[in-house]
């Protein structure tokens, strides 16, 4: 096998330049400024967190795919982010909740009346 490929992890620590963000996000510098003005990405002169690349690509896909304006894209992005945060919170709640007893030991509550079937 060849040497393993090391990609760029798109997280908040790696940095991408403005020109990289435009070229790989399929947006013009002017469109990037619009996204920054709308708060979709942070306003920077250069050196954006690499996670912005995922954000910009998604924004560009939504803009072109839905033929929407950037303002609508910003709203959609906010809503999608909120849905993802809620899903993650729900997942976290499920992870934190006390595990249910196994079916062998669980009290059987037919019809929710709290009567244990023996």
């Amino acid at each position: 096998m060849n040497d393993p490929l090391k990609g760029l992890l798109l997280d908040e620590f790696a940095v991408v330049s403005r020109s990289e963000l435009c070229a790989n996000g399929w947006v013009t510098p002017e469109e990037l400024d619009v996204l920054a003005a709308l708060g979709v990405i942070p306003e920077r002169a250069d050196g954006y967190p690499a996670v912005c690349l995922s954000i910009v690509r998604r924004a560009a896909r939504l803009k072109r795919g839905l033929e929407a304006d950037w303002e609508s894209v910003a709203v959609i992005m906010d809503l999608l982010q909120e849905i993802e945060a809620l899903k993650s919170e729900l997942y976290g709640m499920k992870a934190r909740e006390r595990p249910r007893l196994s079916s062998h030991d669980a009290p059987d509550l037919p019809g929710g009346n709290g009567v244990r079937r023996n």
Partner: protein
Amino acid sequence: MHYRDYYRIMGLERTASAEDVKRAYRKLARRYHPDVSKEPKAEERFKEIGEAYEVLRDPEKRAAYDRLGSQWQPEQDFTPPPDWRGTAGRGGGAHIFEGQEFSDFFESLFGGGRRGTAARGADEAAHLTITLEDAFHGATKPVRLSVPQRDAHGRLVPEQRTLNVRIPKGIQQGQQIRLAGQGNPGRGGAGDLYLEIAIAPHPLYRLDGRDLYLTAPVSPWEAALGARLKVPTLAGTVEVRLPEGSQSGQKLRLKGRGMPGTPPGDQYVLIEIVNPKTDSDRARELYRAMAQDLAFDPRAHWGTA
């Protein structure tokens, strides 16, 4: 190569007006856009719709496409007519799908689907599911891709490719890795591959952000009297002191024992008291002794006694 019925893909009659085409596209885009759709195979369907729209919204391309005639069946074998070259609306124009690869049917009729003549190849997206252990320690994983390549005649043919990709330790659910130049080939260089990572559910641990949750079943006497528990973590077993008087639902925090990162996550150990079965006379006798000797009413706060 197969014929593509763009009208059928968009659910339109061949007589549809430009406004009908736009309306149909917007309706389908809302339904199948992969960023907002829950439909199965949304991405695949959306690419088809996007390609159909690219042709039908452009009067020159649509007229050229219409000249092929209406006798074609979807998926019928297709070769462009001998006098085709040069008659179709090629190049130029603002495309909706920068970075998208079109079908060989489209390319045979209209050439490269992307802006400009020296366009970079399309970016590709792929998903990779890894284990929690791989995410914790980092790993090298093979990623199998079906990538269109041009054959000696310039036709797009699918080619199976395996990439060996380094997964950095501490990668999180949903994070992407960009592999520059590993997307589709193009005259201006290959596009990039975006690999989205999913972490498979684990039989022992549950993941919340960088924190890990593990349920520790304990006996009533361990909980009551305290104990030293041998607890698994992804970095190996550690010994944890269970305090005297512990209750089900309480959790112990193992600081920094969660997923690696800046800062690293924690591991939480959820205490679950498991009662021994009353499957012997001796067991029943011990429970009766506790009932008799311990003044304990777990529902005292209800005030129903």
